[in-house]
């Protein structure tokens, strides 16, 4: 909300410095988003055109004699066409400084011009919001008076942010009230006495039948002798413009002005177009069609409340009036509405219709019913000022309720704030904000002022005490937190995993959990049908956010394809799938890399081996366990380079080279490798147990075995270890060879067995005998022969 500082200063003595006022407002809970400084303007005074003649030498110019209460009249030539004798206008005298120019004596086609009559634009007001040509001031302004001071044009304009609970502060008086309380200054409010005393007969005096519980109050008032169309006086137009509100005509301007001043939105009806001056406030009929003031045809839902007469709706309550009762230049009598509606219904209606206005944004935050009388009174004062005849206002609806008192004790305040405020001080703070305090010993019964509907419980009052005391004044203390049993295990596991992967040379990335259909499409392109039913978002902002990811891999593939160079990455996050109609969410980890292809035979893939090494190292770090790796097939992985790692019979990880068709669908030039680990299903971390080494030396034997292609390295290691029994320290395949020397359909595996005893030095004889038994077993079980 934009408010000129000069307006606030009419109600309360606050500093002139806009920065310090903005700072104070921020610390009261009303942050100032912008302070707009007005340009400096000097030398502009009120003048009156006493006479106007055609310029002797130019058809398009006129020469005015202007009275600025100086020693003599000024002669001013002008090209403006909206001037006439008798007008009161702003005059920039010689030496005046305007934003774009400085006024100097000059000759206009032979006539010496002693100044310039100025337009809104030249006063740094939006030109399109004001009359073409010279700005028209009120006829009763003192000639020679400084226009900038008179109209508050030098003021800074504050753009204040008001939180949703403080609709009472969405107006000049509301903010002035807060500042007055905070600065400890008196608030100067005009008396809001309604001047309407005339009585109109039946059928002309407004009556209201409220048929919905969602209209708490409706003040209706009749005015005569004022029509639409004519401009409001300059002071009002200028102030509205400073507030960012475009002046329209004096009736619209009055309703906007009163709303900005008191917070109460108003609506005017052409009295002749309201049957029998009888309003009916009712729920809209579903599908009821209306034409709003902006000329649009709209269909209402039953959320809307309408103000109607017996024939049809006249206004969408709290949102916008309808064309059928609009005030026009030929209107002779108007009816004013100052009403209070249910905020939720106004909010829903304005959302449904896509119609948000300054009025609806106030109605929807639950205005105080007490404002209806205030708003009507203020409007009546202004309309009377403009020459209208005001009739007596009539209030309908529920009687104004006295807010219920709230019990409060200094103990409660200090318990929540950590302060030691005395109850008198607390009472003083709340009284400054308009609360009525009744004392019960040292305890308070606080009745909030009627405009503060947000104050309902003690905590609300405590916030106001803190605001008045100043949040800054509350001492910052580090608490000693009592011990508790809440576990951080899941968080620590994730961090442990992340650091383990970082130390293995992987970079953590974050990608989007919401994806478009391109992931599935790429899969389909690669001949892969999705294995899971994805969770769909009902209201995505765009198509590429429609689905929740069911795996992290695709995003990493996309990332790596985009990088188009060897990268090593991981992501820890949640994945989602539909499981029998329910959303199943689990924590998962995917890591992997893109790597330059190696010059290796097709049966060897060192990248895969590196991936496996990283996977095992990670699981060992995190769980203290190692697992069994076996060959596997998975959607999305290369059919010949995929493995699963089991720990205690449960799958802990799967990994491998990404299916090259899928890599291609993702546009990856380099081969991709990925490993998935189910974080939620990892076995518990096991403490490592120390096994002391043997005191006796070990020995080793290397074997070159020729086996069939389907015999795995793991088979050889396992069988050899089993054969060596207690003498075996370790078995380890360290080379593989395929080629003409071993023949078609076979391969050679080099394996080292380390043998050692715990009770004595192992002898060569023992070793050789054990190896001979082992070779026999390898032959029997795996068909292995010793390579010659």
């Amino acid at each position, binding site marked *: 909300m934009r408010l000129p500082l000069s307006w606030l200063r009419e109600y309360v003595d606050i500093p002139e410095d806009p920065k310090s006022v903005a700072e104070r407002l*921020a610390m009261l*809970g009303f942050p100032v988003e912008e302070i707009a400084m007005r340009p400096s303007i000097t030398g502009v005074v009120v003048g009156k055109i006493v006479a106007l003649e055609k310029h002797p030498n130019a058809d398009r110019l006129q020469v005015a004699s202007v009275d600025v209460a100086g020693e003599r009249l000024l002669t001013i030539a002008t090209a403006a066409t909206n001037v006439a004798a008798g007008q009161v206008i702003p005059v920039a005298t010689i030496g005046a400084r305007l934003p774009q120019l400085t006024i100097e004596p000059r000759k206009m086609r032979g006539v010496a011009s002693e100044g310039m009559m100025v337009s809104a634009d030249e006063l740094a007001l939006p030109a399109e919001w004001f009359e073409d040509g010279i700005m028209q001031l009120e006829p009763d302004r003192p000639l020679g008076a400084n226009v900038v001071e008179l109209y508050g044009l030098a003021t800074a304009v504050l753009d204040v942010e008001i*939180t*949703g*609970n403080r609709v009472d502060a969405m107006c000049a008086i509301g903010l002035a009230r807060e500042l007055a309380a905070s600065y400890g200054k008196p608030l100067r409010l005009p008396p809001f006495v309604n001047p309407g005393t005339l009585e109109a007969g039946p059928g002309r005096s407004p009556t209201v039948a409220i048929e919905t519980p969602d209209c708490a109050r409706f003040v209706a008032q009749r005015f005569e002798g004022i029509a639409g169309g004519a401009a409001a006086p300059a002071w009002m137009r200028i102030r509205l413009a400073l507030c960012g509100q475009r002046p329209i005509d004096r009736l619209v301007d009055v309703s906007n002005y009163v709303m900005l001043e008191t917070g109460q939105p108003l609506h005017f009806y052409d009295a002749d177009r309201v049957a029998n001056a009888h309003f009916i406030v009712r729920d809209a009929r579903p599908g009821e069609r209306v034409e709003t003031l902006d000329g649009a045809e709209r269909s209402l839902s039953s959320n809307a409340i309408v103000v109607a007469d017996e024939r049809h709706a006249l206004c969408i309550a709290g949102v916008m009036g309808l064309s059928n009762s609009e005030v026009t230049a030929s209107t002779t009598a108007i009816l004013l509405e100052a009403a209070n509606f249910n*905020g*939720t219904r106004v*909010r829903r209606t304005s*959302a449904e219709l896509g119609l948000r206005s300054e009025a609806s944004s106030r109605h929807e*935050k639950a205005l105080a019913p007490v404002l209806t009388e205030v708003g009507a009174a203020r409007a009546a004062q202004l309309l009377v000022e403009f020459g209208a005849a005001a009739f007596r206002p009539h209030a309908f609806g529920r009687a104004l309720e006295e807010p219920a008192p709230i019990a409060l004790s200094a103990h409660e305040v200090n*318990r*929540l*704030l*950590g302060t030691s405020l005395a109850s008198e001080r607390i009472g003083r703070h709340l009284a400054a904000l308009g609360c009525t305090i009744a004392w019960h010993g040292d305890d308070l019964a606080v009745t909030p002022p009627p405009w503060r509907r947000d104050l309902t*419980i003690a*905590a*609300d009052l*405590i*916030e106001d005490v*803190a*605001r008045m005391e100043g*949040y*800054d004044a*509350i001492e*910052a*203390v*580090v*608490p000693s*937190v*009592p*011990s*508790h049993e*809440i576990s*951080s295990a*899941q*968080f*620590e596991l*994730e961090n442990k995993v992340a650091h383990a992967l*970082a130390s*293995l040379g992987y*970079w*953590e*990335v*974050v*990608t989007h*959990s*919401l994806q478009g259909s391109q992931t599935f499409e790429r899969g389909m392109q690669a001949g892969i049908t999705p294995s899971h039913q994805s*969770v*769909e*978002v*009902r*209201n*995505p902002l765009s198509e590429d956010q429609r689905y*929740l990811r069911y795996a992290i891999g695709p995003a990493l593939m996309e*990332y790596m394809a985009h990088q188009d160079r060897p*990268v*090593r990455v991981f992501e820890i*996050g*949640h994945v989602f799938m539909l499981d029998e109609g329910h*959303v199943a969410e689990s924590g998962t980890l995917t890591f992997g890399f893109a790597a330059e292809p190696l010059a290796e035979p097709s049966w060897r893939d060192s990248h895969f081996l590196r991936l496996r090494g990283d996977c095992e190292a990670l699981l060992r770090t995190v769980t203290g366990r190692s697992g069994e790796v076996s060959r596997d097939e998975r959607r999305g992985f290369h059919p010949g380079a995929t493995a699963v790692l089991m720990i205690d019979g449960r799958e802990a990880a799967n990994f491998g080279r990404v299916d090259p068709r899928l890599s291609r669908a993702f546009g990856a030039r380099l081969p991709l490798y990925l490993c998935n680990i189910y974080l939620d299903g990892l076995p518990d971390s096991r403490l490592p147990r120390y096994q002391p080494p043997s005191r006796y030396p070990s020995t080793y034997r290397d074997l070159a075995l020729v086996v069939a292609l389907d015999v795995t390295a793991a088979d050889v290691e396992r069988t050899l270890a089993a054969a060596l029994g207690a003498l075996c320290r370790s078995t380890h395949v360290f080379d593989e060879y395929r080629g003409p020397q071993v023949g078609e359909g076979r391969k050679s595996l080099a394996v080292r067995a380390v043998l050692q005893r715990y009770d004595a030095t192992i002898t060569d004889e023992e070793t050789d005998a054990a190896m001979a038994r082992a070779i026999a077993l390898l032959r029997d079980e795996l068909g292995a022969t010793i390579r010659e």
Partner: protein
Amino acid sequence: MRRRFEEALALARDERSLDEVRVAFLGRSGAVTELRRTIGTLPPAERPQAGKTINEAVAAMEETLERVRTQIEARAFEADLAASIDVTYPPIPPQLGGIHPVRKIVEQTAAYFGRHGFAVVVGPEAEPDYYAFDALNIPSDHPAREGFDSFWLSDTLLLRPHTSPMQVRTMQQHRPPIAILAPGKCYRRDAVDARHLFQFHQIEGLLVAEGAHFGHLKGMLTGMCRELFGSQQNVRFRPSFFPFTEPSAEVDTTCPKCKGRAPECNMCGGSGWIELGGSGMVHPNVLREMDYDPEVYSGWAFGFGIERLGLTCYEVDDIRRFINSDPDFLEQLQ
């Protein structure tokens, strides 16, 4: 042979050529062995003398060899000492990895709060609206629901727009005292720009205990900001409004870039303050919903956007960089 040996030795420049000389003369099939073989051809009476002469020659050769070896070693050692490299030559890069800046900030925060007895809890991102709203004093017709413009998965399930559901989950599972941090991903239907993401991370803090008060909130958050941004950091609390806290406060911290001194600072816009997020005393309705007696227990909570903290912490120009996770971005922020 002695002369030939001396000549060969004179040519030896390093250990290897020295060894070749040794093998050629003193090795198993070297010149000396050859010579010994000829002893058998001598008359028996001359044999002992011949053997003795050879042995003496071998001893002398070995001694010479050892002397030359020592000389060569000394030369090599001196040469090694005299070597010099260009220490500014680019290094061989190690295979580095690293954690995401979001995790770094969470860990730093968790370290601070951990020292003061807070646990760190994590939980689901798809939440029933009870956890995201109802239990947090935001009933279904509350306008604040629209402020959290959320992605809905069904009539009642949504992607959490804040981490506050973890307050509810933790309070349901435990009795006071509750002292937690809850970091995690959140989602809101925001148009993406340099300051907004539709997927971002928040870190939530909650303390519920007898005697927990607003001063404690100030104390902990001041400490946290000093941990993250430096010991000179100040923290400002401004009144605000959130449905689940009362009193409520916005938290600002001194602009770490200009320290509040540069009117043209592009990080704080010249205000000298950076907005961190919302905080406040847990609303009594929230405590009551958890069956905690608000007359006995009080609590405070806060929720900050982690990427926003990152923008400030690392002077990042555009919040989208956190989710693009470019290698250069990650490497720079290690």
